[in-house]
Protein backbone atom coordinates (compact mmCIF):
# COMPACT_ATOMS: atom_id res chain seq x y z
CA UNK A 1 0.00 0.00 0.00
CA UNK A 2 1.41 3.39 -0.95
CA UNK A 3 1.84 6.12 1.65
CA UNK A 4 -0.84 8.22 -0.01
CA UNK A 5 -3.39 5.41 0.03
CA UNK A 6 -2.51 4.54 3.61
CA UNK A 7 -3.18 8.13 4.58
CA UNK A 8 -6.51 8.16 2.74
CA UNK A 9 -7.54 4.95 4.47
CA UNK A 10 -6.50 6.12 7.89
CA UNK A 11 -7.63 9.69 8.21
CA UNK A 12 -11.42 9.14 8.42
CA UNK A 13 -11.26 6.71 11.37
CA UNK A 14 -8.56 8.82 13.02
CA UNK A 15 -10.64 11.97 12.69
CA UNK A 16 -13.71 10.23 14.08
CA UNK A 17 -11.69 8.83 16.97
CA UNK A 18 -10.29 12.30 17.72
CA UNK A 19 -13.80 13.81 17.79
CA UNK A 20 -15.12 11.05 20.07
CA UNK A 21 -12.14 11.28 22.41
CA UNK A 22 -12.46 15.08 22.52
CA UNK A 23 -16.13 14.81 23.45
CA UNK A 24 -15.34 12.19 26.09
CA UNK A 25 -12.59 14.44 27.50
CA UNK A 26 -15.01 17.37 27.78
CA UNK A 27 -17.82 15.32 29.36
CA UNK A 28 -15.39 13.63 31.77
CA UNK A 29 -13.72 16.86 32.79
CA UNK A 30 -16.70 19.21 33.10
CA UNK A 31 -19.91 17.18 33.43
CA UNK A 32 -18.88 14.22 35.60
CA UNK A 33 -15.57 15.26 37.06
CA UNK A 34 -15.02 11.99 38.93
CA UNK A 35 -12.19 9.81 37.58
CA UNK A 36 -13.52 6.77 39.46
CA UNK A 37 -16.75 6.95 37.53
CA UNK A 38 -15.50 8.17 34.18
CA UNK A 39 -11.82 8.94 33.78
CA UNK A 40 -10.99 11.21 30.86
CA UNK A 41 -8.86 9.93 27.97
CA UNK A 42 -5.92 11.92 29.31
CA UNK A 43 -6.35 10.28 32.75
CA UNK A 44 -6.38 6.88 31.06
CA UNK A 45 -3.32 7.66 28.98
CA UNK A 46 -1.23 8.92 31.89
CA UNK A 47 -2.32 6.09 34.21
CA UNK A 48 -1.58 3.54 31.50
CA UNK A 49 1.81 5.09 30.85
CA UNK A 50 2.67 4.99 34.59
CA UNK A 51 1.70 1.33 34.75
CA UNK A 52 3.15 0.32 31.41
CA UNK A 53 5.41 -2.29 32.97
CA UNK A 54 2.47 -3.96 34.76
CA UNK A 55 0.34 -3.85 31.63
CA UNK A 56 3.11 -5.40 29.57
CA UNK A 57 3.77 -8.12 32.16
CA UNK A 58 0.11 -9.01 32.15
CA UNK A 59 -0.21 -8.80 28.39
CA UNK A 60 2.43 -11.51 27.93
CA UNK A 61 0.51 -14.35 29.62
CA UNK A 62 -2.66 -13.30 27.83
CA UNK A 63 -0.87 -13.45 24.50
CA UNK A 64 0.60 -16.81 25.45
CA UNK A 65 -2.86 -18.20 26.24
CA UNK A 66 -4.23 -16.75 23.04
CA UNK A 67 -1.47 -18.28 20.97
CA UNK A 68 -1.75 -21.68 22.66
CA UNK A 69 -5.53 -21.73 22.41
CA UNK A 70 -5.48 -20.55 18.84
CA UNK A 71 -2.89 -23.16 17.92
CA UNK A 72 -5.12 -25.84 19.39
CA UNK A 73 -8.09 -24.43 17.55
CA UNK A 74 -6.13 -24.35 14.30
CA UNK A 75 -5.07 -27.99 14.60
CA UNK A 76 -8.53 -29.19 15.60
CA UNK A 77 -10.22 -27.29 12.79
CA UNK A 78 -7.94 -28.80 10.11
CA UNK A 79 -8.40 -32.29 11.48
CA UNK A 80 -12.18 -32.02 11.72
CA UNK A 81 -12.61 -30.28 8.36
CA UNK A 82 -10.37 -32.83 6.64
CA UNK A 83 -12.27 -35.72 8.18
CA UNK A 84 -15.54 -34.13 7.11
CA UNK A 85 -14.22 -33.74 3.59
CA UNK A 86 -13.15 -37.37 3.29
CA UNK A 87 -16.20 -38.91 4.89
CA UNK A 88 -19.81 -37.91 4.38
CA UNK A 89 -20.68 -39.89 7.50
CA UNK A 90 -18.22 -37.87 9.55
CA UNK A 91 -19.71 -34.71 8.10
CA UNK A 92 -23.25 -35.69 9.04
CA UNK A 93 -22.18 -36.76 12.51
CA UNK A 94 -19.93 -33.84 13.37
CA UNK A 95 -21.53 -30.79 11.82
CA UNK A 96 -24.62 -30.58 14.08
CA UNK A 97 -22.39 -30.96 17.12
CA UNK A 98 -20.14 -28.16 15.89
CA UNK A 99 -23.12 -25.86 15.57
CA UNK A 100 -24.38 -26.92 18.99
CA UNK A 101 -20.97 -26.19 20.50
CA UNK A 102 -21.43 -22.57 19.47
CA UNK A 103 -24.41 -22.21 21.77
CA UNK A 104 -22.25 -22.88 24.82
CA UNK A 105 -21.87 -19.53 26.58
CA UNK A 106 -18.17 -19.03 27.20
CA UNK A 107 -18.98 -16.85 30.21
CA UNK A 108 -20.76 -19.77 31.90
CA UNK A 109 -18.19 -22.48 31.24
CA UNK A 110 -15.17 -20.32 32.09
CA UNK A 111 -15.52 -20.76 35.90
CA UNK A 112 -16.26 -24.47 35.42
CA UNK A 113 -13.07 -24.97 33.47
CA UNK A 114 -11.10 -23.21 36.20
CA UNK A 115 -12.70 -25.46 38.84
CA UNK A 116 -11.86 -28.55 36.78
CA UNK A 117 -8.36 -27.65 35.55
CA UNK A 118 -7.17 -25.10 38.12
CA UNK A 119 -5.19 -21.92 37.54
CA UNK A 120 -3.21 -23.46 34.71
CA UNK A 121 -2.82 -22.69 31.03
CA UNK A 122 -5.17 -25.49 30.04
CA UNK A 123 -8.57 -23.95 30.88
CA UNK A 124 -7.61 -20.74 29.07
CA UNK A 125 -6.41 -22.66 26.05
CA UNK A 126 -9.65 -24.59 25.94
CA UNK A 127 -11.77 -21.46 26.19
CA UNK A 128 -9.87 -19.68 23.44
CA UNK A 129 -10.20 -22.78 21.28
CA UNK A 130 -13.91 -23.07 22.06
CA UNK A 131 -14.46 -19.45 21.08
CA UNK A 132 -12.50 -19.68 17.83
CA UNK A 133 -12.57 -23.14 16.30
CA UNK A 134 -16.03 -22.99 14.76
CA UNK A 135 -15.45 -20.20 12.23
CA UNK A 136 -12.15 -21.86 11.29
CA UNK A 137 -13.68 -25.30 10.81
CA UNK A 138 -16.74 -24.05 8.97
CA UNK A 139 -14.75 -21.88 6.57
CA UNK A 140 -12.28 -24.69 5.85
CA UNK A 141 -15.01 -27.25 5.28
CA UNK A 142 -16.76 -24.88 2.92
CA UNK A 143 -13.51 -24.11 1.13
CA UNK A 144 -12.80 -27.80 0.58
CA UNK A 145 -16.31 -28.38 -0.70
CA UNK A 146 -16.07 -25.44 -3.10
CA UNK A 147 -13.18 -27.04 -5.00
CA UNK A 148 -13.75 -27.20 -8.73
CA UNK A 149 -15.18 -30.57 -9.74
CA UNK A 150 -13.56 -30.32 -13.15
CA UNK A 151 -10.16 -29.73 -11.59
CA UNK A 152 -10.69 -32.92 -9.61
CA UNK A 153 -11.53 -34.77 -12.82
CA UNK A 154 -8.43 -33.42 -14.49
CA UNK A 155 -6.32 -34.75 -11.64
CA UNK A 156 -8.11 -38.08 -11.80
CA UNK A 157 -7.33 -38.29 -15.53
CA UNK A 158 -3.68 -37.79 -14.57
CA UNK A 159 -3.98 -40.76 -12.26
CA UNK A 160 -3.98 -38.82 -8.99
CA UNK A 161 -5.01 -40.49 -5.76
CA UNK A 162 -7.70 -39.02 -3.55
CA UNK A 163 -5.08 -37.74 -1.16
CA UNK A 164 -3.11 -36.08 -3.99
CA UNK A 165 -6.27 -34.43 -5.25
CA UNK A 166 -6.96 -33.19 -1.73
CA UNK A 167 -3.49 -31.75 -1.28
CA UNK A 168 -3.13 -30.26 -4.72
CA UNK A 169 -6.62 -28.88 -5.32
CA UNK A 170 -8.74 -28.77 -2.23
CA UNK A 171 -6.24 -27.41 0.27
CA UNK A 172 -4.90 -24.50 -1.81
CA UNK A 173 -8.39 -23.77 -3.10
CA UNK A 174 -9.70 -23.55 0.47
CA UNK A 175 -7.06 -21.08 1.68
CA UNK A 176 -8.96 -17.89 0.75
CA UNK A 177 -11.99 -19.24 2.64
CA UNK A 178 -9.78 -20.16 5.54
CA UNK A 179 -8.42 -16.65 5.87
CA UNK A 180 -11.93 -15.24 6.04
CA UNK A 181 -12.65 -17.64 8.90
CA UNK A 182 -9.33 -16.78 10.49
CA UNK A 183 -10.21 -13.08 10.58
CA UNK A 184 -13.56 -13.76 12.19
CA UNK A 185 -12.16 -16.09 14.80
CA UNK A 186 -9.05 -14.12 15.70
CA UNK A 187 -11.21 -11.28 16.96
CA UNK A 188 -12.75 -13.74 19.44
CA UNK A 189 -9.42 -15.16 20.51
CA UNK A 190 -8.19 -12.52 22.97
CA UNK A 191 -11.73 -12.09 24.27
CA UNK A 192 -11.77 -15.80 25.10
CA UNK A 193 -8.51 -15.52 27.00
CA UNK A 194 -9.76 -12.48 28.95
CA UNK A 195 -12.93 -14.32 29.95
CA UNK A 196 -10.87 -17.26 31.12
CA UNK A 197 -8.62 -15.04 33.22
CA UNK A 198 -11.59 -13.25 34.66
CA UNK A 199 -12.78 -16.57 36.00
CA UNK A 200 -9.48 -17.17 37.75
CA UNK A 201 -5.84 -16.66 36.95
CA UNK A 202 -2.58 -15.63 38.53
CA UNK A 203 -1.75 -13.06 35.90
CA UNK A 204 -2.98 -11.75 32.59
CA UNK A 205 -4.87 -8.72 31.37
CA UNK A 206 -8.23 -10.21 32.41
CA UNK A 207 -7.32 -10.68 36.04
CA UNK A 208 -5.42 -7.38 36.12
CA UNK A 209 -8.51 -5.58 34.85
CA UNK A 210 -10.59 -7.25 37.53
CA UNK A 211 -8.17 -6.29 40.27
CA UNK A 212 -8.14 -2.67 39.11
CA UNK A 213 -11.93 -2.68 39.12
CA UNK A 214 -11.92 -3.94 42.69
CA UNK A 215 -9.74 -1.03 43.80
CA UNK A 216 -11.72 1.52 41.76
CA UNK A 217 -8.86 2.29 39.38
CA UNK A 218 -11.30 2.88 36.55
CA UNK A 219 -8.57 4.69 34.62
CA UNK A 220 -6.46 1.52 34.56
CA UNK A 221 -9.47 -0.60 33.61
CA UNK A 222 -9.82 1.62 30.56
CA UNK A 223 -6.09 1.46 29.91
CA UNK A 224 -6.30 -2.34 29.96
CA UNK A 225 -9.22 -2.28 27.55
CA UNK A 226 -7.15 -0.08 25.29
CA UNK A 227 -4.27 -2.57 25.36
CA UNK A 228 -6.66 -5.43 24.56
CA UNK A 229 -8.12 -3.48 21.66
CA UNK A 230 -4.71 -2.64 20.25
CA UNK A 231 -3.59 -6.27 20.51
CA UNK A 232 -6.75 -7.48 18.80
CA UNK A 233 -6.33 -5.02 15.95
CA UNK A 234 -2.71 -6.05 15.54
CA UNK A 235 -3.66 -9.72 15.41
CA UNK A 236 -6.39 -8.93 12.92
CA UNK A 237 -4.00 -6.95 10.72
CA UNK A 238 -1.43 -9.73 10.92
CA UNK A 239 -3.88 -12.08 9.21
CA UNK A 240 -3.66 -9.90 6.10
CA UNK A 241 0.10 -10.04 6.22
CA UNK A 242 0.01 -13.81 6.62
CA UNK A 243 -2.50 -14.12 3.80
CA UNK A 244 -0.22 -12.22 1.45
CA UNK A 245 2.67 -14.50 2.34
CA UNK A 246 0.70 -17.74 2.07
CA UNK A 247 -1.42 -16.90 -0.99
CA UNK A 248 0.80 -14.64 -3.12
CA UNK A 249 -1.17 -15.36 -6.29
CA UNK A 250 -4.28 -13.63 -4.94
CA UNK A 251 -2.74 -10.24 -5.56
CA UNK A 252 -2.80 -10.82 -9.30
CA UNK A 253 -6.32 -12.17 -9.25
CA UNK A 254 -7.58 -9.03 -7.58
CA UNK A 255 -5.63 -6.85 -9.98
CA UNK A 256 -7.07 -8.92 -12.78
CA UNK A 257 -10.69 -8.59 -11.77
CA UNK A 258 -10.54 -4.90 -10.95
CA UNK A 259 -8.05 -3.92 -13.60
CA UNK A 260 -8.29 -3.39 -17.33
CA UNK A 261 -11.21 -5.77 -17.62
CA UNK A 262 -9.48 -8.10 -20.03
CA UNK A 263 -6.36 -10.15 -20.02
CA UNK A 264 -5.46 -8.50 -23.30
CA UNK A 265 -3.76 -10.30 -26.10
CA UNK A 266 -0.47 -9.68 -24.34
CA UNK A 267 2.02 -12.06 -25.88
CA UNK A 268 4.73 -9.77 -24.67
CA UNK A 269 3.13 -8.74 -21.43
CA UNK A 270 5.10 -9.48 -18.38
Amino acid sequence: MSAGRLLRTLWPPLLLAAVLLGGWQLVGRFAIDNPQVLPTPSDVASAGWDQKAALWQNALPTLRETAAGFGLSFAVSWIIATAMDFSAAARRAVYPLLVASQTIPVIAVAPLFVVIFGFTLLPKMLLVALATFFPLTASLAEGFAAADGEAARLLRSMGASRWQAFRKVRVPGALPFFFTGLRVSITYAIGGAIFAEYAGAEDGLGIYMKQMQDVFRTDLVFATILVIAVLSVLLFASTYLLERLVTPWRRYERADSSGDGGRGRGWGRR
Partner: protein
Amino acid sequence: MSEYQLEVSGLIQEFPRPDGAALRVLDGLDLRVRPGEFTAVIGPSGSGKSTLFNIVAGLDRPIAGEVRVDGRIATGYSAQVAYMPQKDLLFPWRTVEANAALGLEVQGVPKREARARVRPLFGEFGLEGFERSYPAQLSGGMRQRAALLRTVAMGRPVLLLDEPFGALDSLTRTQMQLWLAETWQRHGWTIVLVTHDVREAVLLADSVHVLSPRPARVVARFDADLPRPRTAATFQLPEFARLEQAVLNALGLKDHASRILRMPDTSSDRTET
Protein backbone atom coordinates in the same frame (compact mmCIF):
# COMPACT_ATOMS: atom_id res chain seq x y z
CA MET B 1 1.82 -53.96 -31.18
CA SER B 2 -1.32 -52.77 -32.86
CA GLU B 3 -1.36 -50.71 -35.99
CA TYR B 4 -3.40 -48.15 -34.10
CA GLN B 5 -2.29 -46.17 -31.11
CA LEU B 6 -5.83 -45.52 -30.00
CA GLU B 7 -8.70 -47.86 -30.80
CA VAL B 8 -12.22 -47.15 -29.65
CA SER B 9 -14.73 -49.77 -30.62
CA GLY B 10 -18.45 -50.14 -30.17
CA LEU B 11 -18.79 -47.61 -27.35
CA ILE B 12 -22.27 -47.43 -25.93
CA GLN B 13 -23.09 -45.07 -23.10
CA GLU B 14 -26.37 -44.22 -21.44
CA PHE B 15 -27.32 -41.84 -18.68
CA PRO B 16 -30.43 -42.06 -16.54
CA ARG B 17 -33.03 -39.42 -17.27
CA PRO B 18 -35.16 -37.80 -14.57
CA ASP B 19 -38.16 -39.89 -15.67
CA GLY B 20 -36.16 -43.07 -15.07
CA ALA B 21 -35.67 -43.98 -18.72
CA ALA B 22 -32.16 -44.27 -20.11
CA LEU B 23 -30.81 -41.59 -22.40
CA ARG B 24 -28.51 -43.13 -24.96
CA VAL B 25 -25.62 -40.78 -25.71
CA LEU B 26 -23.16 -42.98 -27.59
CA ASP B 27 -24.49 -45.69 -29.88
CA GLY B 28 -21.69 -47.94 -31.04
CA LEU B 29 -19.01 -45.37 -31.63
CA ASP B 30 -15.77 -46.45 -33.35
CA LEU B 31 -12.59 -44.46 -33.69
CA ARG B 32 -9.14 -45.55 -34.81
CA VAL B 33 -6.09 -43.35 -34.61
CA ARG B 34 -2.63 -44.24 -35.95
CA PRO B 35 0.53 -43.20 -34.18
CA GLY B 36 1.33 -39.59 -35.00
CA GLU B 37 -2.07 -38.98 -36.54
CA PHE B 38 -4.02 -35.81 -35.86
CA THR B 39 -7.69 -36.71 -35.74
CA ALA B 40 -10.59 -34.32 -35.34
CA VAL B 41 -13.98 -35.33 -34.00
CA ILE B 42 -16.76 -32.96 -34.90
CA GLY B 43 -20.43 -33.16 -34.12
CA PRO B 44 -23.49 -31.14 -33.22
CA SER B 45 -23.84 -29.74 -29.71
CA GLY B 46 -24.84 -32.35 -27.20
CA SER B 47 -23.80 -35.18 -29.49
CA GLY B 48 -21.71 -36.81 -26.79
CA LYS B 49 -18.22 -35.57 -27.62
CA SER B 50 -17.41 -34.90 -23.99
CA THR B 51 -18.90 -38.25 -23.01
CA LEU B 52 -16.56 -39.89 -25.49
CA PHE B 53 -13.57 -38.10 -24.01
CA ASN B 54 -14.53 -38.91 -20.46
CA ILE B 55 -14.55 -42.57 -21.41
CA VAL B 56 -11.29 -42.44 -23.35
CA ALA B 57 -9.68 -40.54 -20.47
CA GLY B 58 -10.83 -43.33 -18.16
CA LEU B 59 -13.01 -41.06 -16.04
CA ASP B 60 -16.22 -42.93 -16.87
CA ARG B 61 -16.94 -46.52 -17.84
CA PRO B 62 -19.08 -47.22 -20.90
CA ILE B 63 -22.01 -49.64 -20.85
CA ALA B 64 -20.44 -51.54 -23.72
CA GLY B 65 -17.40 -51.29 -25.95
CA GLU B 66 -13.74 -50.89 -25.27
CA VAL B 67 -10.82 -48.50 -25.46
CA ARG B 68 -7.34 -49.70 -26.35
CA VAL B 69 -4.18 -47.66 -26.11
CA ASP B 70 -1.20 -49.22 -27.90
CA GLY B 71 -3.21 -52.39 -28.20
CA ARG B 72 -3.80 -52.72 -24.46
CA ILE B 73 -7.24 -52.48 -22.90
CA ALA B 74 -7.61 -49.07 -21.25
CA THR B 75 -11.37 -49.01 -20.63
CA GLY B 76 -12.01 -47.48 -17.23
CA TYR B 77 -8.35 -46.84 -16.50
CA SER B 78 -7.29 -43.25 -16.15
CA ALA B 79 -3.72 -42.15 -16.74
CA GLN B 80 -3.41 -43.80 -20.17
CA VAL B 81 -3.91 -40.67 -22.24
CA ALA B 82 -3.27 -36.99 -21.57
CA TYR B 83 -6.49 -35.04 -21.34
CA MET B 84 -6.82 -31.32 -21.88
CA PRO B 85 -10.26 -30.15 -20.77
CA GLN B 86 -12.23 -27.34 -22.33
CA LYS B 87 -11.44 -24.87 -19.56
CA ASP B 88 -7.73 -24.38 -19.11
CA LEU B 89 -8.08 -25.32 -15.41
CA LEU B 90 -4.71 -23.85 -14.57
CA PHE B 91 -4.48 -23.71 -10.80
CA PRO B 92 -4.32 -20.05 -9.77
CA TRP B 93 -2.06 -20.86 -6.81
CA ARG B 94 0.59 -22.53 -8.93
CA THR B 95 3.08 -20.71 -11.09
CA VAL B 96 2.93 -21.50 -14.80
CA GLU B 97 5.92 -23.78 -14.37
CA ALA B 98 4.31 -25.61 -11.45
CA ASN B 99 1.07 -25.96 -13.40
CA ALA B 100 2.93 -27.43 -16.34
CA ALA B 101 4.67 -29.90 -14.04
CA LEU B 102 1.46 -31.01 -12.32
CA GLY B 103 1.02 -34.19 -14.35
CA LEU B 104 4.57 -35.30 -13.67
CA GLU B 105 4.22 -34.53 -9.97
CA VAL B 106 1.08 -36.62 -9.80
CA GLN B 107 3.02 -39.45 -11.43
CA GLY B 108 5.49 -39.26 -8.57
CA VAL B 109 8.31 -37.26 -10.18
CA PRO B 110 9.91 -35.09 -7.46
CA LYS B 111 8.82 -31.47 -7.64
CA ARG B 112 12.15 -29.98 -8.64
CA GLU B 113 12.86 -32.57 -11.27
CA ALA B 114 9.35 -32.22 -12.71
CA ARG B 115 9.84 -28.48 -13.07
CA ALA B 116 13.27 -28.90 -14.59
CA ARG B 117 11.77 -31.25 -17.15
CA VAL B 118 9.02 -28.90 -18.31
CA ARG B 119 11.19 -25.76 -18.42
CA PRO B 120 12.86 -26.48 -21.79
CA LEU B 121 9.42 -26.56 -23.43
CA PHE B 122 8.56 -22.98 -22.48
CA GLY B 123 10.23 -21.32 -25.45
CA GLU B 124 8.38 -23.38 -27.99
CA PHE B 125 5.08 -22.70 -26.26
CA GLY B 126 5.67 -18.96 -26.31
CA LEU B 127 5.86 -18.83 -22.54
CA GLU B 128 9.52 -18.06 -22.02
CA GLY B 129 10.01 -15.63 -19.16
CA PHE B 130 6.64 -16.56 -17.64
CA GLU B 131 7.84 -19.66 -15.77
CA ARG B 132 7.35 -17.99 -12.38
CA SER B 133 4.24 -16.00 -13.30
CA TYR B 134 0.81 -16.91 -12.04
CA PRO B 135 -1.93 -17.86 -14.51
CA ALA B 136 -3.83 -14.66 -13.66
CA GLN B 137 -0.96 -12.75 -15.24
CA LEU B 138 -1.33 -14.50 -18.60
CA SER B 139 -3.51 -13.70 -21.61
CA GLY B 140 -6.17 -16.16 -22.77
CA GLY B 141 -4.01 -17.58 -25.55
CA MET B 142 -1.05 -18.00 -23.22
CA ARG B 143 -3.22 -19.81 -20.70
CA GLN B 144 -4.31 -22.28 -23.37
CA ARG B 145 -0.71 -22.85 -24.40
CA ALA B 146 0.22 -23.40 -20.77
CA ALA B 147 -2.61 -25.92 -20.45
CA LEU B 148 -1.41 -27.69 -23.57
CA LEU B 149 2.12 -27.68 -22.21
CA ARG B 150 0.84 -29.34 -19.06
CA THR B 151 -0.89 -31.96 -21.24
CA VAL B 152 2.14 -32.65 -23.41
CA ALA B 153 4.53 -32.76 -20.46
CA MET B 154 2.80 -35.85 -19.09
CA GLY B 155 4.48 -37.83 -21.84
CA ARG B 156 1.44 -39.95 -22.62
CA PRO B 157 1.08 -41.62 -26.03
CA VAL B 158 -2.21 -39.90 -26.93
CA LEU B 159 -3.38 -36.31 -26.37
CA LEU B 160 -7.10 -35.61 -26.02
CA LEU B 161 -7.92 -31.98 -26.66
CA ASP B 162 -11.48 -30.98 -25.83
CA GLU B 163 -12.30 -27.79 -27.74
CA PRO B 164 -9.07 -26.22 -26.58
CA PHE B 165 -9.61 -22.90 -28.36
CA GLY B 166 -13.37 -22.62 -27.95
CA ALA B 167 -13.24 -19.80 -25.43
CA LEU B 168 -10.77 -17.59 -27.30
CA ASP B 169 -11.61 -14.65 -29.51
CA SER B 170 -11.42 -15.50 -33.18
CA LEU B 171 -8.12 -13.77 -33.92
CA THR B 172 -6.34 -15.46 -31.02
CA ARG B 173 -8.00 -18.72 -31.96
CA THR B 174 -6.62 -18.58 -35.50
CA GLN B 175 -3.17 -17.71 -34.13
CA MET B 176 -3.36 -20.69 -31.80
CA GLN B 177 -4.51 -23.04 -34.56
CA LEU B 178 -1.61 -22.08 -36.80
CA TRP B 179 0.77 -22.38 -33.89
CA LEU B 180 -0.57 -25.84 -33.03
CA ALA B 181 -0.29 -26.97 -36.68
CA GLU B 182 3.34 -25.94 -36.69
CA THR B 183 4.19 -27.40 -33.29
CA TRP B 184 2.43 -30.68 -34.02
CA GLN B 185 4.41 -30.94 -37.26
CA ARG B 186 7.64 -30.85 -35.27
CA HIS B 187 6.61 -33.34 -32.60
CA GLY B 188 4.27 -35.73 -34.34
CA TRP B 189 2.02 -36.19 -31.32
CA THR B 190 -1.00 -38.45 -31.65
CA ILE B 191 -3.91 -36.08 -31.11
CA VAL B 192 -7.65 -36.45 -30.89
CA LEU B 193 -9.24 -33.02 -31.11
CA VAL B 194 -12.88 -32.49 -30.30
CA THR B 195 -14.22 -29.33 -31.85
CA HIS B 196 -17.29 -27.46 -32.97
CA ASP B 197 -15.34 -25.65 -35.59
CA VAL B 198 -15.31 -27.20 -39.06
CA ARG B 199 -12.53 -24.93 -40.30
CA GLU B 200 -10.40 -25.80 -37.29
CA ALA B 201 -10.91 -29.52 -37.92
CA VAL B 202 -10.04 -29.27 -41.60
CA LEU B 203 -7.07 -27.00 -41.02
CA LEU B 204 -5.42 -29.12 -38.36
CA ALA B 205 -6.36 -32.75 -38.82
CA ASP B 206 -5.25 -35.66 -40.95
CA SER B 207 -8.67 -37.19 -40.57
CA VAL B 208 -12.04 -35.80 -39.57
CA HIS B 209 -14.70 -37.92 -37.91
CA VAL B 210 -18.22 -36.58 -38.07
CA LEU B 211 -20.64 -37.62 -35.35
CA SER B 212 -24.39 -37.92 -35.74
CA PRO B 213 -26.73 -36.08 -33.39
CA ARG B 214 -27.38 -37.95 -30.15
CA PRO B 215 -27.10 -40.92 -29.83
CA ALA B 216 -23.75 -40.49 -31.50
CA ARG B 217 -22.12 -42.71 -34.06
CA VAL B 218 -19.44 -41.83 -36.56
CA VAL B 219 -21.43 -41.06 -39.71
CA ALA B 220 -18.55 -40.01 -41.91
CA ARG B 221 -14.79 -40.08 -41.93
CA PHE B 222 -12.73 -37.85 -44.17
CA ASP B 223 -9.04 -37.94 -44.96
CA ALA B 224 -7.82 -34.39 -44.86
CA ASP B 225 -4.86 -34.83 -47.17
CA LEU B 226 -4.16 -31.15 -47.61
CA PRO B 227 -0.46 -30.42 -48.00
CA ARG B 228 1.69 -29.93 -44.93
CA PRO B 229 2.81 -27.71 -43.40
CA ARG B 230 -0.55 -26.11 -42.89
CA THR B 231 -0.38 -22.34 -42.70
CA ALA B 232 -2.63 -19.35 -43.15
CA ALA B 233 -2.36 -20.04 -46.89
CA THR B 234 -4.11 -23.40 -46.38
CA PHE B 235 -7.40 -21.55 -45.91
CA GLN B 236 -7.12 -20.39 -49.55
CA LEU B 237 -6.77 -23.82 -51.11
CA PRO B 238 -9.68 -25.10 -53.18
CA GLU B 239 -9.28 -28.50 -51.47
CA PHE B 240 -9.79 -26.76 -48.15
CA ALA B 241 -13.09 -25.30 -49.29
CA ARG B 242 -14.17 -28.64 -50.81
CA LEU B 243 -13.37 -30.55 -47.65
CA GLU B 244 -15.05 -27.98 -45.48
CA GLN B 245 -18.15 -28.26 -47.63
CA ALA B 246 -18.06 -32.05 -47.44
CA VAL B 247 -17.83 -32.00 -43.65
CA LEU B 248 -20.67 -29.51 -43.44
CA ASN B 249 -22.75 -31.76 -45.68
CA ALA B 250 -22.01 -34.75 -43.49
CA LEU B 251 -23.13 -32.71 -40.49
CA GLY B 252 -26.46 -32.33 -42.29
CA LEU B 253 -25.98 -28.64 -42.80
CA LYS B 254 -26.15 -28.76 -46.59
CA ASP B 255 -28.71 -26.11 -47.39
CA HIS B 256 -28.02 -24.04 -44.37
CA ALA B 257 -24.30 -24.17 -44.94
CA SER B 258 -24.35 -23.25 -48.58
CA ARG B 259 -26.40 -20.24 -47.65
CA ILE B 260 -23.91 -19.14 -45.04
CA LEU B 261 -20.89 -19.89 -47.17
CA ARG B 262 -22.05 -17.50 -49.86
CA MET B 263 -21.86 -14.67 -47.38
CA PRO B 264 -18.49 -12.96 -47.49
CA ASP B 265 -17.79 -12.57 -43.79
CA THR B 266 -18.54 -15.90 -42.20
CA SER B 267 -17.39 -16.92 -38.84
CA SER B 268 -17.01 -20.63 -38.55
CA ASP B 269 -19.15 -20.57 -35.42
CA ARG B 270 -22.27 -20.17 -37.47
CA THR B 271 -22.02 -23.66 -38.85
CA GLU B 272 -22.90 -24.80 -35.37
CA THR B 273 -26.66 -24.80 -34.95
